């Protein structure tokens, strides 16, 4: 299993589009940007709805369950901060409640070989600093 204890992650810097996402994560809640005109979820947050060019966008709570849409296993140790965790799984998750809105994460608490298309995962929250909490994923029901 990948050892994340020695990894120093870059700290996300919320901006005007993404502040509500990180504020929700700090409350251990997942909120995704949704178009109030057509109902489309999108991630990363954007200035307009990429489905209908609507501008009325709000963040709405979604359940943290979904499945692995794509993944890679990282072996390269070019970035020394992540070298201790190699090999590790970086995954792309499609949430049940927000189809089409892909979230990145690592697969925590499981061997990297468990990363496969379609595997059920659920969100967990990792505190990085006093201000920033990072959504992460583990296999569902474990």
């Amino acid at each position: 299993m990948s050892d994340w204890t020695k990894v120093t992650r870059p700290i996300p810097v919320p901006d005007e589009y993404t502040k509500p996402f990180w504020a929700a994560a700090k409350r251990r809640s997942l909120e995704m940007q949704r178009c109030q005109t057509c109902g489309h979820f999108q991630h990363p947050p954007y200035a307009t709805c990429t489905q209908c060019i609507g501008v009325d966008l709000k963040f709405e709570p979604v359940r943290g369950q979904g499945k692995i849409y794509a993944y890679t296993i990282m072996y390269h140790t070019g970035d020394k901060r992540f070298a201790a965790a190699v090999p590790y799984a970086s995954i792309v998750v499609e949430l049940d409640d927000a189809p089409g809105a892909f979230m990145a994460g690592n697969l925590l608490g499981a061997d990297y070989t468990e990363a496969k298309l379609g595997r059920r995962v659920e969100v967990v929250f990792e505190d990085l600093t006093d201000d920033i909490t990072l959504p992460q994923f583990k296999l569902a029901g474990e």
Partner: protein
Amino acid sequence: MWDNRCKIAVSGVGYSKVSRSADIPLAAHALEAVKGAIADSGLKLEDIDGLATYPELPATGHAEVDGISVVSVNCMMAMMNLPNLTWHIQVGSSNIGGAFQQAANALLAGVCKYAVVWRAMHNPKGTYQNLPGNMATGAGQFTGPYGFGGPGQGHAVAYARWLEKNGQTRDKMATLVLNQRKNTQHNPHAYFYGTELTREDYFASRMVAYPFCLFDCDIPVQGAVAVVLTTADRARDLAPTPAYLAGYGQRLHFETAGRIGSLSNYMEGGSSSAKLTWERSGFSPKDVDVAQIYDGFAASVIYGLESYGFCKEGEALDFIQDGRIELDGELPLNTFGGSLGTGRIHGLWHIIEGALQASGRAGTRQVKDANVSFVGASAPIVTGTTFIFVRDPY
């Protein structure tokens, strides 16, 4: 069909030395390639009146310094002091293929007569792709904290999805990589000229970002290539046999920055560009005699073959087997070795090879009776452009 079909042609081509390390400033490489292309055309420096490039350093976390890590139009103007310059541009949205297309457009508009297009690539010291520093901003705030570094991992997630979705395995990619290294042995300008690669080497190589092993990724190098474009009537008066531009296209699809793993970003990018190219040129995939498809990461060739229409979705790894893509095969592919053979010079070398094959100037790697020569000059995601060059301008 395009009104301007075959009204523009590639004439001369030029190369700098390609080296692993940056022992001379990149500007010197660019100048060597540009002067080479002008000389190959039989032109003089003062004949050149148009300049176009895409001055970008794809390595992340390194400074862009003009003349050292990029070579801008301004840098080239300062070096060359062209007395008859009338037009120049550097592009942003479509990589070097876009610069080439703008040069063709300028020639068609009559605002220059002989344009030179170059691409110069720098290999910085240290790690090529650095993750953001201590802070992750912009689209990187949703990827950097998870150790998603440079473009390699972005391409890797899409490739893993493609493989599993289609019930394929990465071992079939060896055919592509080995064939390209074989072709590289016919290209003395390439970084890996003189270095063979065996099947055993491929399967023993270290994994970088699964499903990519080391040999699925082009090697960062320092070097430059260049071409001279002119109008068809002028090209006929120059020394090289012209390669006529029958049509081109650019990708018309973009999903928002930071959206990763999405195959549609590759497939719709590629198909939108190819559709324009087939319509403008009047050709279809079955007419193509030889193809160059961008291969910075080997999987880009898969998306290219499928989205451009050479085979069905999910079938590209089977399509490349059984000799089909070899020099004497049904669709000779990346005949110059591709980026996997030349080193990371981006898509202008694909364009050069497409033109050389059409003009019958590809030396020992020349595909017999090649007329219709296809080029996909960048990964269909984000920067894709496509071209058809022909020997016969009708």
